[in-house]
């Protein structure tokens, strides 16, 4: 099993979620994060003084899937989160050693 973690632009969340559902992935977990990268923050003015916003709002998706889905999932996310502008984000893939569904105690693939 793998854990796919994707950092994307917030307004792309719904598109990505729908695209993922279409390829049969049923669960995911989302959190609000702030990103720092090539896409630079911007300078805001408040009462005449400058004020640097370094971190940009991003959304992090985490999806645990079976190995055979990984490739398709990465592709799907890449497509659906794409805008072509700087700051579109990253996808990271980790190895997942074990998974448990709390409600049933099911393990690994059955748990996803």
């Amino acid at each position, binding site marked *: 099993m793998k854990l796919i973690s994707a950092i994307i632009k917030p307004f792309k969340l719904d598109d990505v979620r729908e695209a993922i559902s279409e390829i049969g992935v049923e669960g995911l977990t989302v959190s609000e994060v702030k990103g720092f990268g090539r896409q630079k923050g911007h300078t805001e003015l408040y*009462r005449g003084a400058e*004020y640097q916003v370094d971190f940009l709002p991003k959304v992090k998706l985490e999806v645990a899937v079976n190995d055979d889905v990984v490739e398709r999932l990465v592709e799907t996310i890449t497509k659906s989160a794409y805008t072509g502008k700087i700051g579109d984000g990253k996808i990271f893939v980790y190895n997942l050693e074990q998974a448990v569904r709390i409600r049933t105690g099911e393990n690994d693939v059955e748990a996803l």
Partner: protein
Amino acid sequence: MEQNIFHLQYAMDTFYFLVCGALVMWMAAGFSMLEAGLVRAKNTTEILTKNVALYAISCMMYLACGYEIMYGGGFFLSGIETVDADAVLKSFAEREDGFTGGAIYSAASDFFFQVVFVATAMSIVSGAVAERMKLWAFLAFTVVLTAFIYPMEGSWTWGGNAVFGMFTLGDLGFSDFAGSGIVHMAGASAALAGVLLLGARKGKYTADGRVNAIPGSNLPLATLGTFILWMGWFGFNGGSVLKLGDIGNSHSVAMVFLNTNAAAAGGAVAALILAKVLFKKADLTMALNGALAGLVAITAEPSTPTALQATLFGAIGGIIVVLSIVSLDKLKIDDPVGAISVHGVVGLFGLLLVPVTNDGASFSGQLIGAATIFTWVFVTSFVVWYVLKVTMGIRVTEEEEYEGVDKSDCGMEAYPEFTNG
């Protein structure tokens, strides 16, 4: 039957003071919301506590001795609770200035109207020293300012006493209708002394001289506060006519309402446009400060300008305040809510405007008056702040400032569920 008319005039003028006083009291809520909106979330409970407490303390101290010092109204207002209707009727009958002369009304209503002005002066201070001053040092200062510093300068101006027996401001052509100088600039002078001894908030100015903005946490609150102040100001200026009960005076009250509103409108629009020109954005906080600046500018004389003049005076106030806020930041004088600019700089401007429309005032008189008020309030405040600094300390520790004074002083977060506190 004539007496019944006196009864009614007395009642009317008393009620007029009470209604105006209630509106000014309402300004306490305005300052609270304005300041709570312009500080960071972690310092919100404390600024609210300061505002509630300073209003309450002002009422207690002015009642205990402030009113006596300023107007000779008696320690603890002794005797104010009774009225001798017959004596009042007699003074009506025997007055020389006639029915359209000075008002005769309840002393209790006068105190009620006057006391809320003290609190206004003190409210100005809390905003300027926000986010870093110790709560209890601030409250100790509140006691001194409201019991002594403000009543003293009040006695020289509205009270008509000679300044340390030397000269009488009124005779020199000084005039301050509702308190641009006596209330607003005075409050700002005390604030300035405090800010100079206190220093800027950590992180406001960088080592290499840049100014870091520290955005206010809740702009709807700040806007609400401004509207409350705008409304309350009708009482502040309108009540300062000091009489309603005849044609001339009631017309004057109406003009004051009209001009007060016009000046605020002028200030808001001018500040909004200037901020747009300078910063390319419609800066809400500047528009709010602009409205308040318009109000402060007209306060020294809201009854004699025409409506057009009032609008223009307010607009100039709005422009001054934007420039002043930016300049003070350059001087590294850190004032989170812009109180020194709004009430101090524009308060002075308001004083200087009086001779333009009021022949009874002179420029020299206004300058001497302004200098007297500023010197007295600034120097005494500086001394008091300094004594507090070397005794109990006036500034929280760096760690407390980082964590927010809500935790260290109040043990309570303003929005415990909303921030990662």
